[in-house]
């Protein structure tokens, strides 16, 4: 073919000018640098409290459930949708676990699969509302969220459940290796699986393609509705697992405990989308985002800031990360 004789600007098969693109992108490192600055700052101001193994481990332990939730959200964001119900799923799953185990005495081995099935069903409902009924995800999931919160209050009688949890259930959240508690290990396991799915499987490719351009994906034979529904199911299942893990770790259940986690998960995922990547939602970024928020709030609490600082900090991060992403977009265009 004649065209192969054309100048192809260093585009040799396999090798290429990757180095040009791999030059350090400071914008995408900004959140990481900010993270490091936070650690150094708190370490400098309160070295005797902040820079202790116990404190660093507790940041790790406390952020884990939030991170599992945020990982689920990341999958939905990657497919180009939105899930405001994910925190309510966690609340509902926790409530179901508490009621069936602590009050009705069911076996954990029965409850756990049941809750996963509930998660799958909720994800299917979200997905079908968004695809088949073409509802905006914002509306569909906020509706489902409200339904689930209502159900949570109903099954728990809207009161705290703090006794009656069986040993096997508590053991789910209770074990530890050194100072690192169970939720962190669940997080590592879940994040690893999600990274493989999103970056090394056809499903993951299809999810990102659908999120990038639905029409083009459809014309390339991708069943976009299926990817969207799958993403909602993954998110809801992870939401349910996060709820169970949280409840097992706490050993008690406060109805609607998930509500306060919703905003930080979004803040973490959006911050993560501009971390080490160009405006792409990805698991590693999300986990970094969660721990940046967790570190910031813990540090501020140690410095004596009041408890509502978490809301302030997460809100500020969400807004700044979104502005940052916009600014970077404008620059690369």
């Amino acid at each position, binding site marked *: 073919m004649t*065209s192969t004789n054309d100048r192809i600007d260093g585009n040799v098969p396999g090798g290429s000018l990757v180095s040009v693109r791999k030059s350090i992108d400071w914008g995408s490192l900004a959140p990481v640098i900010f993270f490091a600055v936070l650690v150094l700052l708190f370490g400098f101001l309160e070295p005797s409290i902040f820079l202790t193994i116990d404190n660093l481990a507790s940041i790790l332990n406390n952020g884990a459930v939030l991170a599992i939730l945020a990982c689920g959200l990341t999958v939905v964001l990657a497919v180009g949708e939105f899930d405001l119900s994910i925190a309510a799923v966690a609340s509902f799953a926790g409530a179901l676990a508490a009621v069936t185990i602590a009050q009705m005495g069911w076996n954990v081995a029965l409850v756990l699969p049941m809750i996963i099935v509930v998660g799958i069903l909720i994800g299917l409902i979200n997905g079908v509302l968004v695809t088949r009924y073409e509802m905006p995800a914002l509306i569909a999931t906020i509706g489902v969220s409200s339904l689930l919160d209502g159900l949570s209050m109903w099954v728990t009688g809207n009161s705290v459940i703090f006794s009656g949890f069986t040993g096997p259930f508590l053991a789910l959240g209770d074990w530890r290796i050194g100072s690192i508690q169970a939720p962190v290990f669940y997080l590592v396991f879940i994040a690893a699986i999600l990274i493989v799915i999103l970056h090394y499987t056809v499903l993951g490719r299809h999810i990102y393609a659908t999120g*990038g351009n639905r029409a083009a994906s459809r014309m*390339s034979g991708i069943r976009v509705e299926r990817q969207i529904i799958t993403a909602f199911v993954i998110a809801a299942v992870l939401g349910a697992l996060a709820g169970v893990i949280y409840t097992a770790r706490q050993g008690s259940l406060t109805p609607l405990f998930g509500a306060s986690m919703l905003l930080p998960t979004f803040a973490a995922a959006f911050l993560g989308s501009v971390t080490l990547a160009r405006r792409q939602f990805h698991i590693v970024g999300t986990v970094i985002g969660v721990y940046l928020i967790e570190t910031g709030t813990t540090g501020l609490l140690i410095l004596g800031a009041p408890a509502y600082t978490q809301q302030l900090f997460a809100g500020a991060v969400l807004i700044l990360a979104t502005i940052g992403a916009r600014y970077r977009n404008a620059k690369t265009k």
Partner: protein
Amino acid sequence: MRANELGERSVAPGGVVDEGAILAFRNIVKTFGPTVAVNDVSFSLQPGEIHALVGENGAGKSTLIRILAGDHQPDSGTITLDGAPVSFDHPGAALESGIGFVHQIPMFVPGLSITENLMLGVPFRRNAVGLIDWAKAHAAARQSLEQVGVDVDPKRSLNELGPAERQLVAVARALRRHPSVLVLDEVTASLTELEVRTVHRQIDRLRSQGIAVLYVSHRLEEIFRVADRVTVMRDGRHVTTLPVSDLTHQQLVNHIVGTKLGDLFVRHDPAPRMDDTVPTLEIDGLGDGKLIDLNLKLFPGEIVGIAGLGGSGRSRLLKMIYGAGAPQTGEIRLNGTACHFRSIADALAAGVGFVTEDRIADGFVDTLPIWKNITLPWPKRFSSHGILKLRQERMYASHDAARIGVKMPSVDAMMTQLSGGNQQKAIFARWISAPIRLLLLDEPTHGVDIRSKAQIYDLIRELTSQGVGILLVSSEIEELVGLSDRVFVLRDGRFRSVLRDEEITKDRILHSLLDEERQVSEHDKH
């Protein structure tokens, strides 16, 4: 004094500026970092002249237009309007000085009325109380529409207008400011042949009003039809400015490309066909209410063109074969096997490929790098035990991109970093070594520069030599004439005629597009 200066310049390599010009570019230079986008370009427009500006993508046309519009500032050189130097330091300045712009996709608010769209940017007439005087506004709008020969009620919604009429409304809107120069930037790129003619008739009329038109287009045929003179740019430089009557099509192509491309359309010999050759594609009595009783056979290595106006159902037909729409009647057979595709994935699995008409809308995913766009329909081919072999996938994609000659910084770059022509080549790279038997092409060279066009034609021929059958839809009749072994003319959902060999001429196709009489006779179909 100015005349003397100009007289000396007439031998300058960067081009010349004539006396009495309404708009003149003088030695314009514009650099972006190390890239010289516009390099010492001079030429001028006379009042009442239609002046075409052509060049490949990246030749510097767009930069020059953007300098004129005030989006960019030139590094050196001046623009003069009616003899006086002007400098447009912000986007509105050019408009205020009497230069109008109409772009490929005009900015409209589709839900509003034609009047409201005409008024965008130009203040509404208000009555004594400070409210909009709708009676006067509609009257003014009607007058504007008359100017461009559009006969519709301006109170109607813009949605009701066809693409050609929309472009004309955009022209009318630009004319409301009484410009002395009107820049038409690829205004016909999305139009079909007949729509183009409608627009051209109106552009012709501008000449008599003394308005100078700078006409940018990739479609060279049009330039010969509508323009008085043509300026060619290549690699940022001015190549030549000539009356179109002094040029042949081939000469113009050579000026644009620089090296001789040879004839864009080298006839290829269709693969010899035995009587018992099984058709790659056979559609039999296909219909869905809008398409009626379509019959067609396409043999391996053959290119069948489909001529039709916008709205004739040509894209619909392609999508139906691609599994994106279900037929109500009839049957589609691939290699003799009846197919009932329930999704595009089914069609892909059966070896059908598709290149879409609008690559920006549904051609590629702009958040994925080039290589993942090349393998977009096929990631499964690179997975074993469910895990993608990314290194192998990327190698494969870069190999195919290189084979097709996609000019890109690297396969890891984003599609949006490529020119239109290279985006289109990257999309073709999907199919070049894929296991397909049939490739459906919907406007395969839409908005693509001439060199990429030639490469895409080469590619289409290479595919046919591998035995792939091609079904080609194009609004560019030259393309149908140049490539097709047979041409089916689709009008109002039916095949009205089929042309083969010597019958495939521009005139015959245009005729059948309009002519009610000729019908496909039953034995003539294959």
